[in-house]
């Protein structure tokens, strides 16, 4: 199919510089926190919790940003997208970041990225109402940006495929004959557009209600309802970042295996199941709120387990099948993309286990929790983003993994695995999460964790520097401009499998 439209490679490349830099910076903040817990650094609790808030908000936001950039780029291959929308999205995102950083490091806000009601309003004198309002306005701006992004994506998908049901592959699921099967990127995008728009609309509501409560405390908010809405919003949003970034795997891996990633019936079913599950799973954050009806907690436990099935049996299984016997080459891109699915799958296991109410009683809010979500972020979403970045500057030839690339890759993966294992072990040793000051018996673990964190930072710096250098040399070679929308710099047009489309 011949589209006159070209992906907005300039805007996306710029966004990935931003994402890579912020990822690195936020990782440094994480490293500082681990070092402070290990008493290698002296950080006052006041500052520690500000760093904690910045690390959480920054990582979630950047995961969302990089995922959105990946999806925008590849959707450009299938549907026309209005360029201005991406710039509006990016501007609102950056404006939101300014509000959030100002609120934390100028206003002293340290209410955690989850802004759990009513903590933002009750700082014990540490920050003013204005700082909390600024934080939430920042979130709201970012949310508005994402909403506009999804409206554009949803609108173009509907124009092209006649409705989200078709884009989700319902004809395929219902066994109807169709010659217009949506490619995997579209199926993923349609699902993400639906569930993350719902999350943002509800998230915006709870943000505005919190702002009203901050400014006019007589408007009280029900703490349990606020908690439900916040975790619904937060969980769906962070999940959406992975579900957007995985499009890079669907679109890039076929270049290596020579086998198109097809939308099959089971693939479509898996994504429709994910669409429902992702919105019902957040109750596993509330398993210790025993005032909630039992059916919600049971749903939380069941969905935590069963949402692993589409991931393991469809995404991970398919990837393994595509890899086997493909004689594919291993460069930084393919290695990172494959490790990202592996990390995501492996990370779902401690998550599902913690999703059991009986286990949750002794694991919830220990370091087990950061242990599992760092697995599918560090070795999942973030690895997908870095893999995408490596691919953007890859050039036409696939070089095998060697030299500095290999060193960065091994450092990153080794550091991440060690970092995560320390978290899980500490969680099993009942070390609570989000403590600025640790007991003496926990400090050894913190120090080991710090060393692994330093390795992750090193590997990340390698990836980011390599990417920026790659862009510079590529631009010198082709005269391309980063801010332009020319498509000359990437290789999306060459040697691309047709991905199941009919011309």
């Amino acid at each position, binding site marked *: 199919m011949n589209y006159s439209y070209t992906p907005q490679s300039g805007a996306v490349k710029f966004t990935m510089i931003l994402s890579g830099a912020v990822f690195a910076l936020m990782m440094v903040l994480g490293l500082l926190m681990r070092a402070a817990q290990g008493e290698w650094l002296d950080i006052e609790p006041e500052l520690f919790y500000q760093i904690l808030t910045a690390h959480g908000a920054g990582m979630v936001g950047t995961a969302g940003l990089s995922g959105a950039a990946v999806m925008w780029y590849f959707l450009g291959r299938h549907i026309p997208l209005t360029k201005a929308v991406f710039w509006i999205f990016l501007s609102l995102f950056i404006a939101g970041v300014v509000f959030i950083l100002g609120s934390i490091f100028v206003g002293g806000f340290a209410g955690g990225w989850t802004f759990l009601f009513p903590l933002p309003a009750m700082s014990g004198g540490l920050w003013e109402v204005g700082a909390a309002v600024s934080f939430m306005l920042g979130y709201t701006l970012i949310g508005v940006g994402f909403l506009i992004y999804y409206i554009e994506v949803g609108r173009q998908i509907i124009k092209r495929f006649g409705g989200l049901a078709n884009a989700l592959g319902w004809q395929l699921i219902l066994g109807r004959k169709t010659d217009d099967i949506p490619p995997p990127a579209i199926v993923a995008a349609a699902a993400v557009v639906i569930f993350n728009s719902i999350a943002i609309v509800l998230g915006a509501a709870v943000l505005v209600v919190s702002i009203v409560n901050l400014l006019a405390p007589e408007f009280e908010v029900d703490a349990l309802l606020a908690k439900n809405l916040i975790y619904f919003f937060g969980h769906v949003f962070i999940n959406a970042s992975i579900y957007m970034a995985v499009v890079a795997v669907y679109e890039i891996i076929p270049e290596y295996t020579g086998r198109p990633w097809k939308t099959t019936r089971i693939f479509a079913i898996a994504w429709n199941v994910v669409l429902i599950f992702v919105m019902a799973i957040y109750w596993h954050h509330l398993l210790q*709120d025993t005032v909630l009806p039992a059916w919600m907690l049971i749903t939380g436990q069941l969905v935590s387990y069963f949402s692993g099935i589409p991931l393991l049996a469809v995404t991970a299984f398919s990837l393994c099948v595509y890899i086997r*016997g493909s004689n594919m080459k291993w460069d930084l891109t393919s290695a990172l993309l494959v490790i990202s699915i592996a990390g995501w799958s492996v990370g779902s296991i401690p998550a599902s286990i913690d999703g059991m109410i009986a286990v949750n009683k002794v694991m919830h809010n220990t370091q087990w929790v950061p242990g599992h979500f760092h697995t599918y972020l560090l070795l999942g979403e973030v690895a997908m983003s870095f893999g995408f970045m490596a691919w953007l500057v890859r050039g036409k030839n696939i070089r095998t993994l060697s030299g500095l690339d290999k060193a960065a890759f091994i450092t990153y993966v080794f550091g991440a695995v060690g970092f995560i294992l320390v978290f899980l072990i500490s969680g099993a040793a009942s070390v609570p999460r989000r403590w600025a000051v640790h007991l003496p018996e926990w400090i050894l673990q913190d120090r080991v964790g710090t060393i692994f964190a330093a390795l992750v930072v090193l590997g990340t710096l390698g990836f980011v520097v390599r990417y920026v250098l790659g862009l510079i040399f590529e631009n010198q070679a082709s005269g391309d401009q980063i801010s332009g929308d020319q498509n000359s710099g990437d290789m999306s047009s060459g040697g691309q499998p047709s991905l199941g489309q009919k011309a």
Partner: protein
Amino acid sequence: MQPLILTISLVVMAVVALLFWRSVRAASKPPQQENVGKRRTQLIWGLVVFGVFISIASLREWPHAIASGEDAIVVNVTGGQWWWEIDTEEVPLGKPVNFFVTTEDVNHGMGIYNSDMQLLVQVQAMPGYTNKVTYTFDEPGLYQVLCMEYCGVSHHDMTNEFNVVAVDQ
């Protein structure tokens, strides 16, 4: 309990990682003729059946059941920035204790630790609500209450303690 959870998790995680590793190693080998669809179906059904089994096994006895017998003791715990108020200093050994937990300001989490700093049980403290959890202590000694939900600048200092003592009938 925690060492067992850790062991099971690490083993399953290692198995999944190993399957990936085997696929990666198999990339350079000639493709095998096998029925992928059939194996996938087996995998899905295997996971579903195992899931149903484990769900029933772990939920048949409701983990949040509250003791209601004559033996049951009620202990009220109230949290606030940044303190725990426990309405008793001594808790009897071997009897089910119902902790009624709430908070005066923001969300907290009540985690009960034994003298080895092992987490025994926890429940959230919510403003405007009372969460209930039952625990039966089988060893006398000093127990600590730690805050498990981030609640502001002194979150890590929010601790209190109580004694579990043997009571003669």
